[in-house]
């Protein structure tokens, strides 16, 4: 059984079809890149998987379960925006996650926060945008989830911070978990991706193992992306 099953998902906003019959599965222990240019429907798809939006048709299952309280226990989600309460301190946020997520490893989170030399009593509103993003990532990656879903975790940040984020992601999730990561900065992530899903105008135009796609097309994923989505 696949960890995540997305089956014939369609989503429109008025007359604008954002996702059109999207179908794919993600197995356990895979790092999957959800790749596509801005406006291709990546964030909408991720929100649907996280039950923040409702599909017009189709089904989404996580470990065979319909979306709901039980699937939220399995998914650790990093949105593409600052979503935490700015009036909370880092410590309050750690306790918040500990209270609501049984799989949250607070010691792990404190260790990662310590490496950033951040004060646990510092409020989020006093931090720079980049530091807030790192704190959010630490909270998400400190859970021992089955499926991590990261929406543009390296978009709009400097290369040094990008390395920190990629390293934090790769060193903090277990082998039996899967990772769905949306991005259009493929060169930074290509070497770690097991599979890719290319999304174009709301449709899946390519889905498969990165090795097989490279062999089949004789191109790197980055080059293929540029070819596929050239303006």
């Amino acid at each position: 059984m696949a960890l995540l099953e997305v089956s014939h998902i369609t989503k429109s906003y008025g007359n604008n079809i954002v996702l059109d019959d999207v179908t794919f599965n993600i197995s356990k222990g895979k790092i999957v890149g959800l790749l596509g240019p801005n406006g291709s429907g990546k964030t909408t798809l991720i929100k649907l998987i996280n039950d923040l939006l409702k599909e017009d048709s189709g089904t989404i299952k996580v470990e065979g379960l319909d979306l709901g309280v039980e699937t939220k226990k399995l998914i650790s989600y990093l949105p593409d925006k600052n979503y935490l309460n700015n009036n909370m301190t880092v410590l309050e946020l750690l306790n918040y996650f500990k209270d609501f997520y049984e799989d949250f490893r607070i010691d792990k989170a404190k260790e990662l926060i310590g490496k950033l030399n951040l004060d646990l009593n510092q409020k989020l509103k006093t931090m720079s945008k980049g530091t807030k993003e790192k704190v959010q990532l630490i909270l998400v990656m400190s859970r021992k989830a089955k499926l991590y879903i990261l929406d543009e975790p390296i978009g709009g940040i400097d290369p040094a911070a990008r390395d920190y984020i990629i390293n934090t992601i790769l060193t903090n999730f277990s082998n039996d978990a899967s990772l769905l990561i949306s991005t259009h900065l493929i060169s930074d992530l290509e070497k770690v991706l097991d599979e890719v899903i290319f999304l174009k105008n709301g449709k899946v135009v390519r889905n498969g193992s990165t090795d097989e796609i490279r062999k089949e097309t004789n191109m790197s994923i980055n080059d293929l992306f540029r070819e596929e989505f050239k303006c």
Partner: protein
Amino acid sequence: MLSKLLKYDFKNLYKTLLPIYLITLVITILTVILNNLSDTSNLFSTLNGLMVLSYVIILMVLLVGTFFLSIRDFYLDFASERGYLINTLPVKKSWIITSKFITSVVTMISSLVVMFISILILVIGNGEWSVFANGIANIFRDIPGDAVVMLILMTVLMIAAYISGLAVCYLSIALGQLKNTNKLGFSFLAYIILYIIYEMYFTFALTFVGIINPDFVRSLDNEIGVIPSVNLLFGILIGLVIIITAIITPITNYILKNKLNLE
């Protein structure tokens, strides 16, 4: 999980409310001091006037602000970026909504308590405690048994009406968030429409009561023995408020559970 939601909802609201409570009490004490000094000079008299005005304003801020904060908190959790956190927690939507109702009612009660304490300080500070206490004692000494029931029913009605008012606001937000743009504007529009329906519901229901029992309406006009009829009216109103709230709240829960639209 409900207790955890309550913990964070209370923390969140009291972070703003506690400073307002503190300011209320400080303004109360300053009002008392300046009131006692107002006869000594024109300056103190003028300051006292300003302080009394500030006092009235802070009491309004206290009550309106408490209600506004509760509604704002609900809006932020279901129609803003903050919703990404609360709506991905492994908790039922009904618990989140229940937590909002409980924290909203409790914070309003605590604000009313602060207002009562503030008025007591004002009365005691102005040396009118004995007049005030005697007045209250007289009311309760002479009060008939029916009137005690009436006071209890009135209190229950006020709490039920507050919860019902919140339910209308929450449903308005739930409907407003369905739109992809200008969620706040559509929430206001939904509120206006729901409020009209809400008022029509009470008008029709009470008219219906009047039609099936004209004697009851006439008994409300009698000066003698009116209290039992008023108590019955309060009982009917409480029933009507409970019915409409019991209809509205599951709709809110259904929309937020099945039609959440966090754009």
